[in-house]
């Protein structure tokens, strides 16, 4: 212990402060934050940051912007409690604290269409706020669509009022080899041009090359079991090719505080993106 290589270790709890460039209300509880960072985070899709205010607190928030967004960071924050509640009261040019990026995220390389790994189909299923982290994956795919194979998006929300990023989704529709299904559980007497039903319903209709498909899921805890069941029933996709994005309580983001532990892994470090094949050893994952 006496021979610490770097005797002054960085204090990883001190955040950087970033300026809010704009805040846009997306739905009753959710707001899109666009902040300007002092330097780019160089994140992977699916990673998250600890966001907050000094003296108030921090919480884990997924990065919603593309890895190529440079000094601009986009996040969607839902009002769920204290910190998120206070963040939503901020205004343009206020400062917020950021630490990260944390977590494993997705490796875009694996998703690219290459002769050798032969991935042709990418299925992305998002429920509710689940679209937010997956957006950081979808945007780079859409922007370099020719590098990737067929894309199937299934995006579900509770009601039309809660459906996120609809106009952006609209722009994705024009991409070649791209099918998008948008659903709501309940049209709630509002105008709705998409489908009605649960995200599990369109799954069996997917036209995919089972052996060469990657599936990505993100949504509320209850969604996973049913979606996975549906996939397993209809397709024979290897477990390594299915990704899930999980949520846990997080305090440090550094794999120390223990709150996010799922069996032997730390959700903040090994996750929040896991391959389904990993979960067979993680009994607590889909609790």
């Amino acid at each position, binding site marked *: 212990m006496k021979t610490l290589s770097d005797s002054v270790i960085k204090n990883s709890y001190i955040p950087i402060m970033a300026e809010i460039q704009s805040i846009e209300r997306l739905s009753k509880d959710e707001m899109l934050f666009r902040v300007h960072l002092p330097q780019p985070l160089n994140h992977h899709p699916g990673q998250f940051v600890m966001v907050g205010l000094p003296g108030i607190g921090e919480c884990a928030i997924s990065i919603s912007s593309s890895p190529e967004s440079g000094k601009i960071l986009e996040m969607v924050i839902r009002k*769920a409690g204290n910190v998120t509640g206070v963040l939503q009261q901020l205004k343009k040019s206020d*400062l917020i604290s950021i630490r990260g990026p944390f977590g494993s995220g997705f490796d875009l390389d694996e998703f690219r269409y290459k002769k050798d790994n032969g991935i042709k189909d990418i299925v992305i299923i998002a429920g509710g706020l689940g679209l937010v982290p997956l957006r950081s994956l979808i945007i780079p795919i859409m922007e370099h669509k020719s590098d990737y194979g067929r894309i199937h998006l299934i995006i579900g929300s509770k009601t039309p009022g809660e459906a996120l990023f609809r106009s952006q989704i609209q722009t994705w529709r024009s991409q070649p080899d791209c099918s998008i299904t948008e659903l709501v559980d309940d049209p709630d007497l509002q105008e709705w041009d998409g489908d009605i039903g649960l995200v599990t319903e369109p799954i069996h209709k997917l036209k995919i090359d089972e052996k060469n498909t990657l599936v990505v899921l993100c949504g509320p805890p209850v969604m996973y079991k049913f979606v996975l069941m549906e996939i397993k029933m209809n397709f024979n996709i290897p477990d390594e090719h299915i990704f899930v994005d999980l949520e846990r309580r997080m305090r440090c983001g550094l794999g*120390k505080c*223990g*709150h996010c532990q799922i069996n032997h892994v730390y959700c903040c470090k090994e996750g929040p993106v896991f391959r389904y094949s990993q979960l067979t050893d993680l009994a607590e994952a889909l*609790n």
Partner: protein
Amino acid sequence: MNAYLSNLNQIESWFFSLAEKQAFFLPRKTQGINYRFEFIDHQQPLDLFSYKPTILPPGKNIFPDGEILFTYNKDNNGHYHFHQGTAIHSQLLAGVRACDLKGIYLLDKAFSDGTKDSHYLQRREKTDIIAFNCTTPCDDHCFCEAAQSLDFQTGADIFITPLFPISSNKEVHKKQQCLLEILTPRGAELIKSLVSQKCSNPQKLIKQALENRPKPFGRQFLTPVKQLSKVIHQEDAESIYQQYAERCFSCGTCNLVCPTCYCFDTKDELNLDGNSGQKTRHWDACLNPGFAEVAGGHNFRADPAARQRHRVRRKFDYLPQRFEQTFCTGCGRCGRQCTTGIDIFDIVNDVYLSIQESKE
């Protein structure tokens, strides 16, 4: 490395002289039946070898509760300024036993894994350790041999082995000899102020001293710990965890006294001026019901049996997968201090037994 011989009288005055130079902690008997690492500040007689694992393990001196991670203030222009937290001073922990040395060693591993924890590691760097060897099991709760931490020396600067039999009811004689092994350059520095003589045949003396240790030393698992870990990893043993959970208060004592528990919560505090504050961290306990609760009220480990299982697996399965070491040192603290008498030693043996039975 070098070894020296010295007697208890000399060691005692050496401790007092060291205590004058820096914060010095030593186990001391409480008014009841326990021991506690206490700050030695005036010359009270020391009782060096009567001992049973302290209420809190010495590792908590390196990972203190409520430590300030940083402070901040906001200037008139709205800019934030951050400052390092609690100042880190050097300290000397004496009388640390092998099980707790291992505890500290495991914390070292955990806090330097991946992103390094500056607060822990910097304080660790400034912590000197004078360890004592055990020649007799501390009490009925101890199972350090079974947990593979007996004779653990890594991390100590000086390791002291008493060369005389120790029994709890007899006064040890002040003239009796101890062997001091110097394990680090820092240890060599510390020993300079001790009146002692160099020892040329330390191995032989140690061997003699330890020969009379009871065999087996303390409680033993029903099967070697490696095997135990495998069973705990593979089998759920729900009913065993459930059975213990029924008696459990979910009070978290077992976590908080454990030398290898390091989960924590952080708290952000705002000063009354509204423009400054701090972030602190506090020991947390996975046995407390709110530990895995998230916004919206979902609790990922709402069931007490699930929490009990998590604790056991963390010690014998999860962290060992990561660090290739059992994360239970066999100190026996959790069983000793659990008011309702739940002992992790019993749980793991029961898990093993239930598996054996179900096989039959």
